[in-house]
């Protein structure tokens, strides 16, 4: 996983609630067997509208998505995270994220930041008034900063540590392999197996 410490970039205001993962990346894109190449599928249906915020010339190169509540609801597809990253987003700000999407994002180094809806509205107003305004998402300080805005955010210490160091979850778990083996030795015999005993 890529490290995340701090990021500063221009924003895209997405004034919609309940942006589900089918909107972020439609199902037909999920047939791909790679983690890359999803950028053209990001918000594919909405991008057909020239006026959609992502299509506006002033939003090109922006890297912080500021979205409405319940962002990432629906399917568990990690492709939604890859699509946002492939497109160039480094961080997503919302007042509420769906659990699976949030988990997926933090495992890939896409920082999802929860801020109060009033702060989200303030960031929308700022970037809509001046698209060149930059937003800083600072994981070390656990703070989002923009002109006139300093907003602290919460993130679990362990998750933050993994992100700051770009650590791979599997390697960490494998360090505790002895615990896994010890647990396996205690599993009851009635638990089902998918294969006949070897």
């Amino acid at each position, binding site marked *: 996983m890529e490290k995340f410490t701090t990021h500063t970039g221009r924003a895209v205001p997405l004034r919609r*609630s309940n942006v589900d993962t089918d909107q972020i990346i439609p199902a037909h894109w999920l047939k791909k067997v790679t*983690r890359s190449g999803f950028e053209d599928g990001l918000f594919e249906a909405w991008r057909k509208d020239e006026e959609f915020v992502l299509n506006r010339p002033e939003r090109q190169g922006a890297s912080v998505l500021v979205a409405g509540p319940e962002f990432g*609801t629906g*399917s568990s597809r990690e492709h939604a995270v890859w699509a946002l990253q492939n497109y160039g987003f480094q961080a997503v700000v919302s007042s509420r994220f769906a659990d*699976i999407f949030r988990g997926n994002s933090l495992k890939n180094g896409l920082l999802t930041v929860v801020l109060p809806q009033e702060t989200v509205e303030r960031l929308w107003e700022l970037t809509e008034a001046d698209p060149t305004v930059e937003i800083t998402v600072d994981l070390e300080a656990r703070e989002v900063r923009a002109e006139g805005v300093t907003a602290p955010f919460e993130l679990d210490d362990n998750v933050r540590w993994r992100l700051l160091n770009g650590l791979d979850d599997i390697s960490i778990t*494998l360090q505790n392999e002895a615990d896994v083996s010890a647990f396996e030795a205690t599993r009851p015999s009635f638990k*089902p197996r998918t294969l006949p005993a070897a």
Partner: protein
Amino acid sequence: MGRTLAEKVWDDHVVRRAEGEPDLLYIDLHLLHEVTSPQAFDGLRLAGRQVRRTDLTIATEDHNTPTLDIDKPIADPVSRVQLETLRKNAEEFGVRIHSLGDVEQGVVHVVGPQLGLTQPGMTVVCGDSHTSTHGAFGALAFGIGTSQVEHVLATQTLPLAPFRTMAITVEGELPEGVTAKDLILAVITKIGTGGGQGYVLEYRGSAIRSLSMEARMTICNMSIEAGARAGMIAPDRTTFDYLQGRPHAPQGADWDAAVAYWETLATDEDAVFDAEVFIDAAELTPFVTWGTNPGQGAPLGASVPNPADFEDPQERVAAENALKYMGLEAGTPLREVKVDAVFVGSCTNGRIEDLRAAAAVLEGRRIADGVRMLVVPGSVRVALQAVEEGLDKVFTAAGAEWRHAGCSMCLGMNPDQLAPGERCASTSNRNFEGRQGKGGRTHLVSPQVAAATALVGRLAAPSDLPNNVAVEA
């Protein structure tokens, strides 16, 4: 203090608990399908890792599989590559797979329970949000992303953030014609698409206890549509009776030991939930969605709501967008909404009981002119059972299409899709924009409402039909 069902199952799977770290949980069953696993297997290969427990892992093909001409090569080359990738990965890593054409093939959440692999007190994961289905057995079951799929393949564990518990208590009897689907749609509208966020839901109360396993699966299946981490129902005699004799159910002394353990899992009387919701079963009616998220629903007897009536500004905008996308006018009675297509199937309502319910409404009748109806069994086993009962003949005689097992029109990954602007009454789980095909419009309904709608050509319940047919809830 007592513990809830969810807390008991969690506690029984903690491999490692340390200050400042998430609990590391053991995973009893890992279900795989073609869409969310290829990148996980790639990760294993890159790191030189194996699948730790192939004997706790099983794969099936469902999302991409066609429901017609399954004996011919899959026409879409990208879908074909994805299915072939799963087959190659299963062979290389030694994972059991049920491919298209196999008698155990089907939608992953139908296959696990019917094989008896899903049992009470287990932890079950799959790279699919509707893994919550398996919670109907009193298992802690949840959808995971591809990074987590790789983690489970490599370690058979997952580090997991703590959860909160919510009781959804439904007391009383469901009125005639009101089903598990109506109940869960009403729950989602009540608590919202984010209402379950961070929670494991436990469905309880007399109305839940009286439901069959199929109906319980329908309810737990859609827990994710309320944003929940998982949904569960305490195992009881209904659960044990469903499991006994299935291919992977315990046998002999193991069965007795298992039942003795399963009986300890129910929430203790003095356990406290972090949140509680109460629902009076008697007040429920057939329920349908009018919008583009599963929380935008209403009783079939209601009208399309007026966005101006929503107090919350976000909800108001969402309702405006939804009506525009859905091509609906505020104030239109839902019973006047005409449909082009009807879909019966999916991991929500693709089990034998669902097909029986739809067939009971259709029997001896013809679907309305201009309506296309697809009936898609959730698995090959469900299809075989339906044929044995003659349900396939009821469907075709009514003018519906009887298809092979798969995810079909629940999501736009295989040939079964809506055309832009087409409107569908669907027994699936998501009414998101474009979910059933680009520009398609989805109304989520029960199998009974789906069948009645196909007959009338407008959203309808069996009670709306001339010579009203009596239908078991």
